């Protein structure tokens, strides 16, 4: 808990998934408790509710069960966020629930994660939920995966059982294209291999869960190839008192990919006009270069017309530019997705009307096989669709850039967020017309 006063630490975001009762809440409670991130009044509140509902026993899971409706139903119904820190890192945990019908919550909680922890009950081994969660983690391109085999105390800490479950996973993992997967035997209830090493697993030589969370390399989790600045807000001072800002015109946004340097060539899309970077303006003074995911304001050499929703890009790794899009979507609404329906599509800072022209297939999440030609996608279904947008979209494939390759669909009228989409790589990239842009 005590942080060294001026030592900069980085931040890791992870989510936990597993089916109901696999021990997610207990695990998060354990992480907070053993890493000394709980306070007296939180422990007091735990003890108070233990007397009322738990027959006197402290229940670590209560720490993360926030809402009244949940307490009444005894289940976690939404995504809850927890925060804790060690001297090496800060952590944001998204607690994503495990019901079959709650795929949408896992997608929500995991979309920004560097790492996912999939919990498995050692007695049950791989069940449909384990496949589902691993599959979603892979679709969302979570860079790191931990398979935590929990409740090892209930299988006598059997190495044989651990290997059996690991082998079950390894049978299907190759199909999912996950690069970094760790297996870990654990008891969240008793705290073995969560923060402290367990004496009961002499056969396990890997790190504890917290040890892994503290040391996994996340430096390359952001895309640093191909500069992308989705323009969020045009910065144009109104009647400034300071004459320096009379002609100031900057383009503000969060860099969604790559690096940018003063003096380099850039192009604004969709206009296709090329210019150079005159200044990288920040409140803390000008910078020579900036990178993803910094928030900056670019001042350009020429006065070209750029507005919110446009994208400023660099000369290499060109994006796609099309109004005909292919994507995997996770459907999140009780009213199913049908072809022919119109939605708002929000992609980076750009919102356009879009119509679903076809549903190519629905993913069978248990065997990872796409099933062709479904008539609709229901709540929590994942499938491949084709969309036509009213104006072209400037995008990358989700597999190369999570920020410029993702979108949401918004239902017209209710304004509900009904889908999370992951774009396929562009079939062709934008063709710069200005010849001086070619390097």
């Amino acid at each position, binding site marked *: 808990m*005590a*942080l060294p*006063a001026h030592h*900069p630490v*980085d*931040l890791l975001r992870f989510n936990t998934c597993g089916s109901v009762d696999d021990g997610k809440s207990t695990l998060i409670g354990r992480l907070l408790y053993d890493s000394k991130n709980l*306070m*007296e*009044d*939180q422990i007091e509140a735990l003890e*108070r*509710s233990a007397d009322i509902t738990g027959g006197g026993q402290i229940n670590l899971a209560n720490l*993360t*069960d*926030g*809402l009244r*409706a949940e307490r009444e139903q005894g289940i976690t119904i*939404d995504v*809850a*966020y927890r*925060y804790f*820190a060690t001297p090496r*890192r*800060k952590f944001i945990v998204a607690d994503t629930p495990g019901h079959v019908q709650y795929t*949408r919550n896992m997608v*929500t909680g995991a*979309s*920004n994660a560097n790492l996912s922890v999939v919990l498995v009950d050692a007695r049950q081994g791989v069940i449909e939920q384990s496949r589902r969660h691993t599959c979603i983690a892979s679709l969302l391109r979570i860079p790191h995966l931990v398979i935590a085999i929990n409740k090892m105390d209930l299988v006598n800490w059997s190495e044989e059982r651990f290997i059996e479950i690991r082998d079950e996973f390894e049978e299907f993992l190759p199909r999912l294209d996950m690069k970094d997967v760790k297996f870990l035997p654990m008891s969240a209830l008793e705290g073995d291999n969560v923060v402290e090493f367990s004496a009961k697993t002499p056969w396990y030589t890997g790190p504890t869960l917290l040890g892994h969370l503290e040391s996994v390399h996340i*430096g390359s989790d952001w895309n*640093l190839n191909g500069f992308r600045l989705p323009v*969020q*807000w045009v*910065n144009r*001072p109104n009647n*400034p008192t300071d004459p320096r800002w009379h002609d*100031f015109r*900057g383009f503000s*946004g*969060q860099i969604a990919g790559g690096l940018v340097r003063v003096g380099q060539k850039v192009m604004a899309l969709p206009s296709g006009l090329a210019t150079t970077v005159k200044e990288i*303006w*920040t*409140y*803390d003074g000008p*910078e*020579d270069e900036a*990178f*993803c*995911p*910094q*928030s900056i304001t670019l001042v350009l050499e020429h006065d070209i017309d750029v507005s919110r929703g446009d994208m400023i890009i660099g000369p290499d790794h060109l994006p796609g530019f099309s109004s005909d899009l292919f994507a995997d979507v996770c459907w999140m609404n009780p009213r199913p997705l049908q072809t022919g329906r119109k939605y*708002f599509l*929000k*992609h980076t*800072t750009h919102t356009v009307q879009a119509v679903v022209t076809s549903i190519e297939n629905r993913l069978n999440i248990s065997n990872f096989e796409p099933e062709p030609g479904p008539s609709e996608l229901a709540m929590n279904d994942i499938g491949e669709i084709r969309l036509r947008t009213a104006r072209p979209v400037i995008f990358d494939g989700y597999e190369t850039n999570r920020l410029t390759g*993702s979108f*949401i669909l*918004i239902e017209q009228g209710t*304004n509900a*967020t009904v889908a*999370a989409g992951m774009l396929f790589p562009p079939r062709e990239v934008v063709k710069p017309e200005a010849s001086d842009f070619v390097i």
Partner: protein
Amino acid sequence: MHSYHLDHLQYLETEAIHVMREVAAEFERPALLFSGGKDSICLLRLAEKAFRPSDIPMPFLNIETGHEFPELLAFRDHRAKELGAKLIVRTVDDVLARGVAVQSFGETSRNRLQIPALLGAIEEFRFDCCIGGARRDEEKARAKERFFSFRDSFGQWDPKNQRPEIWNLYNARLNPGENMRVFPLSNWTEMDVWEYVRKEKLEVPSIYFSHERECFRRGGQWLPIPPPHTDNGRPDPYAGARPKPNEKRAKLIVRVRTIADMISTGVIESRADSIDDIIAEIAAARVTERGTRADDKASEAAMEDRKRAGYF
């Protein structure tokens, strides 16, 4: 810049700036809730970072309970002026005087009464979005809160019917009468806030630092003794919040850890008189920040009930 990697404060900062610019771009009439407390002080710096050299494109709004520490109000006014922002103040007193809401019997805290005052201001100025400084680590019910928290036309929060928030794509669309609360500091902890105050060298109101104060003991914590009631023509706004004869009084060296208002803010005994001291104190603290707020103790579900009714 040699390494292309952000530390945790830089990450939280860029995330919050992104959120603020989304608000400026997507809403027609946003406001920024500014109380003068440490969280909203950070919000102002983030607004400067998001929008300078332009003016911050939204007014500041504060709902006064009438129980504020005078130091806080002075700080609030001074800071708004310094930034050249328009500050709108609406009060619980006014809501009571107009009979829009009534104080229930025995109710001393005015936190509940801030709700109609806030909703009144939203209606009066037709605000479609209010940026607030709430953090998810403050309280259990907040842990599920979104960055963009949708409120229906009665200003209510329905925890079961929130929009999923995926990647950094915020759905800001509203129908007439609906409203959004936006929390750029969602992912910040109390420690992050103080580390940011230190890093940015932000000025904070003096009551965060240790000072001598007359206090009394109630409900397991020390509360400040309110200023004397002088205007005999009006009822005492602090009725119920004054020490009873049997309650222990003491002059102590204290500071406040979180600022609600004088009635519901417990003070803690502390000698911390610099930001470094405060950070060291929090690192060693054994009680969460909200453990010093009387209004949450009433019931474990207190915060959730207030939020459903339209609290920040």
